[in-house]
């Protein structure tokens, strides 16, 4: 039976559920089912012996906004540090009181550091009485976690009663008993439960454990994270702040579903020989027209403006754009009609002439001829 094992090998008992429980040497994390994508990375961290602070950093690295709830618990000696967020409840029992924490009462999170905790119960979902599985470390779906394990009959186990049954041992009025005769009293009650059969020792995890003498977590001094900066500093009319950058994260202008083109490339992808005699390398966006304009570019990607004569005004002021292609067009140039009045005709070698559709980029083959009207043509060659 497992009771011969030292307590470290069966630190807690759990009831199965939907949340992810990640239990390690130094810290444990509970995450809601929606946060599945984070679980693997956190498990790796926790299993490598990451401390409370390190795990908290990892949890918050992408911000608090998209993390609806979590529980983080230190597993080291000394005071129990806990952080709760979202619809989770935790109850801690010390020698003379019971402390209940509810993550949903705070907008950000609830954090406590508790001395002398003898027993803890964390509930993340409704967990009907039932199978209690004991577990040392590992990654498992849970609804409720109790530490020390229910019905673990090593001397250190106390307060086996779960707080939602008769309650004869709970409540601040009745201090949680120290290991002693009372234990015997409670034991029969839990006995009927399906016996916590020698829980298959959490699979390969124990081996993966680092040396138990892993480096101690950083001193608790600086562990409290600063609240996220907020608020708007403003004065008068114009002001800054108070908006969410993610809200406005939108696709780059360009073709939906296609990566935005690299605006400036190291080596030109094509050379344009313009009938007016000019030659232009395509290593960035090139705008061609009667009086071309470049709009809303960043300082590092200033486009090249090429002015072509148009005595009959057939060519539009900003007629077309040639730029290095991206995605499937990577390595070649693409041409886009910028909504010109009289349109653009493209003749590619071996293909019939085509009218460019405004705003639709077309890949250019060396040898292609672009006709802007008014006798102006652009020949595309290799750089």
């Amino acid at each position, binding site marked *: 039976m497992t009771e011969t094992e030292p307590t470290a090998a069966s630190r807690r008992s759990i009831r199965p559920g939907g949340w992810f429980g990640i239990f390690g040497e130094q810290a444990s994390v509970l995450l809601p089912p929606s946060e599945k994508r984070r679980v693997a990375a956190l498990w790796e961290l926790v299993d490598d012996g990451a401390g409370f602070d390190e795990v908290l950093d990892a949890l918050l690295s992408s911000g608090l906004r998209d993390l609806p709830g979590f529980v983080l618990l230190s597993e080291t000696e000394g005071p129990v540090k806990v952080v709760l967020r979202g619809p989770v409840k935790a109850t801690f029992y010390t020698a003379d009181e019971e402390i209940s924490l509810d993550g949903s009462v705070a907008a950000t999170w609830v954090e406590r550091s508790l001395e002398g905790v003898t027993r803890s119960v964390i509930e993340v979902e409704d967990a009907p009485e039932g199978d209690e599985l004991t577990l040392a470390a590992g990654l498992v779906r849970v609804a409720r976690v109790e530490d020390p394990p229910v019905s673990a009959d090593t001397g250190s186990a106390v307060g086996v009663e779960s707080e939602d049954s008769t309650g004869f041992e709970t409540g601040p009025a009745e201090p949680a008993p120290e290991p002693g005769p009372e234990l015997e009293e409670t034991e029969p009650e839990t006995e009927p439960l399906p016996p916590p059969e020698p829980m298959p020792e959490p699979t390969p995890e124990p081996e993966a454990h680092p040396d138990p003498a892993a480096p101690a977590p950083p001193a608790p001094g600086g562990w409290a994270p600063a609240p996220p*900066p907020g608020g*708007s*500093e*403003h*004065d*008068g*009319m*114009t*002001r*800054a*702040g*108070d*908006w969410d*950058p993610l*809200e*406005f994260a*939108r696709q780059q202008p360009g073709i939906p579903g296609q990566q935005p083109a690299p605006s400036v490339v190291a080596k030109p992808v094509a050379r344009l020989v313009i009938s007016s005699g000019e030659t232009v390398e395509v290593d960035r966006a090139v705008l061609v027209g009667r*009086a*071309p*304009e*470049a*709009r*809303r*570019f*960043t*300082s*590092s990607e*200033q*486009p*090249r*403006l*090429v*002015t072509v004569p148009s005595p009959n005004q057939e060519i539009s*002021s900003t007629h077309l754009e040639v730029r290095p292609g991206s995605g499937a067009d990577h390595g070649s140039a693409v041409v886009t009609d910028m909504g010109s009045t009289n349109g653009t005709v493209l003749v590619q070698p071996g293909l019939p002439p085509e009218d460019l559709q405004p705003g639709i980029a077309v890949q250019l083959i060396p040898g292609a001829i672009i006709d802007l009207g008014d006798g102006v043509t652009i020949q595309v060659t290799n750089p």
Partner: protein
Amino acid sequence: MSKVEVHYGATSDVGRVRQVNEDSYLASPPVFVVADGMGGHSGGDVASRIVIEEFAELVDSAHDPRGGAAAVAELLERAQSRINQYGIEQRLTGAEKWYAGTTAVVALLVEDDGVPKWLLANVGDSRIYRFSDGALEQVSVDHSVVQELVDAGTIAADDVASHPERHVVTRALGGPDDAEADYFLLPLVSVERLLLCSDGINGMIDDDTIAEVLGDVGDPRDAADRLVAAALDAGGRDNATAVVVDVVGLLSDDAYDSAPLHVSLEHKLGALP
């Protein structure tokens, strides 16, 4: 580079409500700047002045007109770090909640591909308009919450003037926000008249009124005065600054006649084979 002759006028007013004018401007060819500071006394006014001081360098020194957007970006970056540095000093002297930021709009005459052009840049919600052929067009795109909402299709352009967050900028120099500017490069011929203004102008009078003033008033100095006066008449709830620039002519250094002759006199006279 061929010289560009410009006429310009600039006016700034504290408005009817505010105590401090936190707007600053620079109107000195080849560079024109309007900066709208935020943060209150010895905050926003200092921030906007720092921007002006940085860009004044373009006036005094022989700046390379071909530097383009990268040169402007460098000055904006320097202004940004000076504002942040100033902020650190202020906070060290006890003003814990001290904050200052500023918008900036810049119009710089540059040489691109051997031709003079307007390089325009904006950070925040101050604006650059161009007036050509009797039509007013807003060139810069505001870095503001409402503009983002319009772009996203969340609200209609008509609702902007009444939106509660219409004064919230999403980019500013010196603030916690992104300070990267957007740039625009326009040929001189497409711009008869440029207007750089703080939101004390376009927030108080609509584009039709601005177009009317720019179309009616010939002298750019009078046009700037009239725009600020109109903003004050409409309530003057914010500092109002307008800079109006007209390109009146290109003075070419190399006159056509002085182009080097490819045929020597000896050739012409038949003295050489």
